C-alpha cells in the first residue's frame, strides 16, 4: 500500500452533474417512437376478478397496446416464494396489484385508456390483522400456498405463515427460573417506506429477440434474471442498463416492473417508458418496511445479568412473501442482539395479509427490531435500577464470545462503540440536562454480505485506469469510492480512475446495491485485479531502473527505488512502455467470497437458510439527546453520537456520509415516518402526510470509527457500511424520549400524539 488506508478524503466525480442537472436518469431517456406506459391497479385490496375487458381502451386513438396476465407466460416469480405473477391472475391481493398495462402516445392518453378498462370485481373481505391470520381457521391469502415453489428448501411455511424462523439457544425456561426479575412488553412498529427521491422508472426497447431495459433498479442482474424468467426468454437476450440512480434505499431491490414494461414494448412494437408517480412509489413496489409486532420477555438477575430472553415477532409481509422470509431470519438476530444472554428462544412469523407487500428497505427489520430490543433493555435496566449503559456493558459480547446462533466473534468492537458514543454525547452529565431533555443509547449489529464478484481493470497507456464492473452505484458512492483502492495499488490519483458499471452486458455478475456489499465484495475483486497489474508494473520498472522489484515502491504516480526517489519511472511511462512492447496492462479477478462463520444455527434452529450466522458483522452504538415539548409530545432530536465498528474504514468521507444519512433516516423512522392504514389500504401515500425528516430537523451528528478489522471480511478486514447507520437510531431516540417523558413509547413511529397519549396514561 502506498497511501495509508483511511486517510484519503476523496470526493467522487458525479456530484457536479447531479447538482447542475446534467446527470441523466432513466426518466430523462427518450428513444425514437417512444410510447408512455401506465399501469391499472386493483380497485380493492382483495377481490376476485370475474372479467377484464380491455377493448374500450384499445379503441382509444393513440393507444398502442393494452396487456394483462393472459398476454404474458404464466411464470411465477418471487425472491423467496414463487407466489405471484406479473399481472393479477384472477385475484387481486392488495391495492397495489397490477391488473393491466397500457402503452400510448402520451401519458394522458395512457391514463385515459386505463380508466376505460372494464374490470368486473367480486370484492372479498381483506385479511388485515396478522395475528388473526395466524389462527387455525383464518382464510388463506394464498389458497395454493403448499404448491408454491420456495427458492430455499428450508423455508418453513404453513398456511398464511410464509416463513417461520427461530433461534434456539440453551433452555429459556431454566433461564427464567434463575432470574430475579422478569420484564415483558409488546412493541409495535408501523409500515414504512424507502422513499427514494427518484421514483421507479423503466424504458424498454426490443431489437429482434433482444430487449434492452433501462431501469432505476439497484440490482441489474436480478432484474435481468427476473425479466428472462417471467417472459420465458434467455438471460443473454436481456440487457439491463442503469443510468444515474436517484437513490434506492432498498425500495428498488429485486426484480419487479422491468418485465411489465418489456412486455408492453413487445406488444406495442415500440419502445415504452414508464415513470412512477409518487403515489405509485408508495403503493406498488414490493419493498417496504413490514408492520411488525415484537413481544419480548427477559429474565435478569439483581446484579444485571440477563439469564433468558424469549421473543415472538410477527412480521406482516402483506400480499406476497417477496424477500420477507429471509428478513425474518435477520429480525431474530436483531432482537437477540450482540449480547451474551445464555438462553434464547426467539421466533419470527412472516405473515400474509392483504396489505402492501413487505421486503428489503435499507437494513430491513434492523431499525424496528433494534428499537424493540433496545427499548425493552432500558425497561429491564430500569426495573433493577441499573444505568442503561452499565447494564449493556455487563451483557454485551466480547472477543471470542458466542453469538446467538453459535458463531464466535472476532474483531468485535461493540463495547468500545458504546463507550465512545456515551462519551461523545456526554452521558456522565445526563442527570444535569435541562428540563424536557433526555438522553438514551442503543447498540446493535448488522451483517456483511459475502457474494460472488468480479472486476476487470485496465491501466491505460497515459496512466489513467478504467474499472469495468457489474456493480451498481446507487448514490452512496460505493462504486466511485473503489477508485481509492485502485489508487492505493497502482499509485495513481483516484480522479484518474474511470468506471463502466451498472450494465449487465459489460461487467461481471454482481449482487447489486444491496446488503451493504459493493465495497465488501467488488473491492476485493478490484484489489486482486490491481494486484496483478501492480506486479507487472514493478517488474517492468525493475528492468528499466535496473533494480530489484522488491526494492521498489509505487507512490505519487511513480514507481521508484526505495530511499532513492530520483531513480523512478512514472506509472504512465511504465504502462506506455508495456504497450510499445505489445503488452496490455489489464487484469480481471473474480475472488471467492469469505466463508460464513462456523455456527450451530443450521442445526439448533429452523428456517435459517440465508443467515445461519452473521458474516463479518458490523457493530455500533448510538446515543441521542432529545428535547420533548411535554405539553404537545413534539420531540426534536438535538444530537446523535454514532460510534461504528466497520472493521476498517476505507473511505472516511464516504462512511461519514453514510452515517449522517443513516442517522437522519433513523430519526425519521423514530419520530414521523409511518403509514397510516385504513384496514388494508394506505391513507398517506404522499409526501404531505407521510412525513420524512426534513433537513431542518436533522440533528447534529458526532461520529467515531472503532477500528476492529476481521480476518474474513472485505478489503483490509473491512465490513459493510451502507445499512448499519440507521439501525440503532430509533432505539437511541426512544430511550432518550422515555427519559424525558417518564414513560416508554412502545409504538413506532413515536409521533407526538402517541407520546402525549403514553404520558397521559402513564407507564
Amino acid at each position, binding site marked *: 500500500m502506498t497511501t495509508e488506508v483511511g486517510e484519503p478524503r476523496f470526493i467522487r466525480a458525479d456530484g457536479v452533474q447531479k447538482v447542475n442537472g446534467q446527470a441523466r436518469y432513466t426518466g430523462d431517456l427518450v428513444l425514437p417512437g417512444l410510447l408512455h406506459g401506465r399501469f391499472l391497479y386493483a380497485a380493492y385490496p382483495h377481490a376476485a376478478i370475474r372479467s377484464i375487458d380491455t377493448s374500450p381502451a384499445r379503441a382509444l386513438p393513440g393507444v398502442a397496446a393494452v396487456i394483462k396476465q393472459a398476454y404474458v407466460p404464466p411464470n411465477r416469480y418471487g425472491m423467496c416464494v414463487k407466489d405471484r405473477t406479473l399481472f393479477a391472475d384472477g385475484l387481486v391481493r392488495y391495492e397495489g396489484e397490477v391488473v393491466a398495462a397500457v402503452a400510448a402516445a*402520451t401519458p394522458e392518453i395512457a391514463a385515459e385508456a386505463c380508466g376505460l378498462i372494464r374490470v368486473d370485481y367480486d370484492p372479498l373481505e381483506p385479511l388485515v390483522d396478522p395475528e388473526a391470520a395466524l389462527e387455525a381457521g383464518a382464510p388463506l391469502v394464498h389458497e395454493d400456498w403448499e404448491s408454491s415453489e420456495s427458492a430455499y428448501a428450508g423455508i418453513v411455511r404453513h398456511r398464511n405463515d410464509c416463513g417461520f424462523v427461530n433461534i434456539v439457544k440453551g433452555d429459556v425456561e431454566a433461564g427464567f427460573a434463575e432470574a430475579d426479575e422478569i420484564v415483558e412488553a409488546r412493541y409495535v412498529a408501523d409500515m414504512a417506506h424507502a422513499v427514494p427521491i427518484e421514483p421507479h422508472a423503466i424504458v424498454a426497447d426490443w431489437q429482434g429477440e433482444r430487449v434492452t431495459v433501462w431501469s432505476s433498479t439497484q440490482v441489474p442482474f436480478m432484474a435481468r434474471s427476473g425479466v428472462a424468467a417471467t417472459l420465458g426468454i434467455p438471460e443473454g437476450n436481456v440487457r439491463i442498463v442503469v443510468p444515474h440512480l436517484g437513490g434506492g434505499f432498498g425500495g428498488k431491490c429485486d426484480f419487479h416492473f422491468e418485465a411489465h414494461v418489456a412486455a408492453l414494448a413487445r406488444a406495442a412494437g415500440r419502445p415504452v417508458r414508464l415513470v412512477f408517480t409518487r403515489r405509485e412509489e408508495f403503493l406498488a413496489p414490493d419493498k417496504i418496511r413490514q408492520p411488525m409486532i415484537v413481544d419480548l420477555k427477559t429474565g435478569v438477575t439483581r446484579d444485571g445479568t440477563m439469564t433468558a430472553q424469549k421473543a415472538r415477532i410477527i412480521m406482516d409481509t402483506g400480499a406476497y412473501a417477496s424477500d420477507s422470509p429471509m428478513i425474518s431470519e435477520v429480525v431474530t438476530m436483531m432482537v437477540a442482539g450482540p449480547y451474551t444472554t445464555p438462553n434464547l428462544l426467539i421466533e419470527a412469523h412472516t405473515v400474509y395479509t392483504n396489505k402492501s407487500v413487505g421486503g428489503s428497505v435499507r437494513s430491513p427489520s434492523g431499525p424496528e427490531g433494534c428499537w424493540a430490543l433496545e427499548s425493552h433493555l432500558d425497561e429491564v435496566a430500569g426495573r433493577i435500577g441499573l444505568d442503561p449503559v452499565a447494564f449493556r456493558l455487563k451483557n454485551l459480547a466480547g472477543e471470542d464470545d458466542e453469538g446467538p446462533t453459535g458463531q464466535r466473534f472476532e474483531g468485535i468492537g461493540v463495547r468500545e462503540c458504546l463507550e465512545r458514543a456515551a462519551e461523545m454525547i456526554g452521558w456522565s452529565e445526563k442527570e444535569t440536562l435541562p428540563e424536557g431533555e433526555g438522553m438514551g443509547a442503543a447498540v446493535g449489529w448488522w451483517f456483511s454480505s459475502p457474494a460472488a464478484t468480479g472486476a476487470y481493470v485496465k491501466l491505460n497507456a497515459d496512466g489513467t485506469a478504467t474499472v469495468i464492473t457489474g456493480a451498481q452505484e446507487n448514490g452512496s458512492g460505493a462504486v466511485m469510492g473503489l477508485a481509492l483502492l485502485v489508487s492505493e495499488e497502482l499509485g495513481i490519483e483516484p480522479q484518474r480512475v474511470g468506471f463502466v458499471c451498472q450494465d449487465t452486458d459489460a461487467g461481471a455478475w454482481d449482487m447489486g446495491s444491496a446488503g451493504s456489499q459493493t465495497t465488501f465484495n467488488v473491492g476485493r475483486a478490484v484489489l486482486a485485479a490491481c494486484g496483478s497489474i501492480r506486479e507487472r508494473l514493478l517488474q517492468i520498472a525493475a528492468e528499466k531502473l535496473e533494480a530489484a522489484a522488491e526494492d521498489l515502491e509505487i507512490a505519487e504516480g511513480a514507481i521508484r527505488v526505495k530511499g532513492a526517489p530520483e531513480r523512478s519511472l512514472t506509472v504512465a511511462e511504465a504502462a506506455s512502455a508495456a504497450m510499445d512492447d505489445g503488452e496490455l496492462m489489464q487484469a480481471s479477478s473474480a475472488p471467492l467470497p469469505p466463508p460464513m462463520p462456523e455456527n450451530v444455527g443450521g442445526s439448533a434452529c429452523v428456517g435459517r437458510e440465508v443467515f445461519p450466522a452473521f458474516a463479518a458483522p458490523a457493530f455500533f452504538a448510538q446515543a441521542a439527546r432529545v*428535547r420533548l*415539548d411535554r405539553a*404537545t409530545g413534539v420531540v*426534536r432530536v438535538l444530537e446523535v453520537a454514532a460510534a461504528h465498528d466497520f472493521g476498517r474504514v476505507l473511505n472516511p468521507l464516504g462512511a461519514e456520509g453514510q452515517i449522517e444519512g443513516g442517522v437522519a433516516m433513523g430519526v425519521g423512522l423514530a419520530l*414521523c415516518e409511518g403509514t397510516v392504514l385504513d384496514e388494508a389500504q394506505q391513507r398517506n401515500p404522499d409526501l*404531505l402526510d407521510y412525513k420524512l*425528516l*426534513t433537513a431542518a*430537523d436533522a440533528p447534529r451528528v458526532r461520529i467515531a470509527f472503532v477500528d476492529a478489522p476481521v480476518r474474513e471480511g472485505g478489503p483490509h478486514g473491512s465490513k459493510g457500511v451502507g445499512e448499519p447507520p440507521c439501525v440503532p437510531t430509533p432505539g437511541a431516540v426512544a430511550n432518550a424520549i422515555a427519559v424525558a417523558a417518564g414513560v416508554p413509547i412502545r409504538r413506532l413511529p413515536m409521533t407526538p400524539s402517541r407520546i402525549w397519549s403514553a404520558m397521559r396514561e402513564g407507564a
Partner: protein
Amino acid sequence: MGGLYLEPDTIDEAVALAAEHGEDARFVAGGTDLVVLSRKTGQPLPPALIAIHRIAELRGVDVGHRGEARIGAATSHAMIEAHPAVVESWTALADGSAIIGSPATRHVGTIGGNLCNGSPAMETGSPLLVLGATVEAASPSGRRTFPVDELFAGPGRTSLEPGELLTAVTVPGTGSSTGSAYVRLDYRLAMEIAVVGAAAVVRIGAGGRIEDARVALTAVAPTCVLVPGLADALRGELPAPEAFAEAGELAASVAQPIDDVRAPADYRRAMLPVIVGRTLEAATRRAAGERVAVPATHSLSEVA
C-alpha cells in the same frame, strides 16, 4: 388535451374570460393547490385555465392613509412574510405566510389562492379573521367587498360566485399596544400543515390589562373560525396563564376536531388550549413591544 391557457392583463379581461368559459374555467395563480391536486389525483386540469400572474393590480402590499393595508390577491406568501409593514403591524399574517409549505411553495403560492382553496387548515385564514380583514371580489357586474369570515363556506368551499375573482384583501390598521400572532402545532420544522393552529390579536390597556382580544382557530372546524365571546371573557384580565387557559376553554367549545391521518380528534382537542395559550402569549409579548421573531411557531416552540 386541448386545454386553454389564458393570460389576461387586467382584472376586467380576466373576469370577462371567466364569464365566457363558464364552468370550464378556473383561475390559477401559483398553482400550488390546483396543479398539485391534479397531478396527485390524476384528474385533468380544468379545460380553461385563466392565469392571473400578469395582472399587476393583483400584486403587492399598499399601506393606505388610514393605516390599512391592501394586499393584492396574487401577492406571494414570500412577499408578505418579508414585508416590513406586515411584520410590524399585522404580524399574525406574517407568521402564517412564513410557514406555508416550503420556500418554493411560498414563492409561487399566493394569499388569494390560499383563501380560495378553502381548506380549514389554511395558514392565512385565522390571521385574517383576527385582524378583521375584508376581501374584494370582481365579476363582470362589478366589485364587492365583504368580511373575510363570509368568504369561508366549508371545507374546500368559498362564497364566491362562479366566475368571480378574489382581487384583494384589506386589513385595517392596528392601534398602539396591540400585537398579533399565529401559532401552529408542528411535528417537523419545515414542510408542515396545520394539525391545530390559532391566531390571536391582543390590545393591552391601562394597568397592563387586556383591553381587547380576538382568537381564531385553524384545522379544528369545517373552516377557520373566530372564537365568539372571547373579548368579553378576557377584557380586564391580566395577560397571564389563567386568562389564556380561559381562552383555551372557550376555544375548545367552538372546536369540532376530527380524526384524520394527521392526528386523532382527542389529541387535537387537547392541543387546542396549548396552542391558543401560546399564540396569546406571543401576541401579548408583541403588544408589549417585545420582539418575538416571525414565525412565532418557531420562536415560541419549546423544542425548536
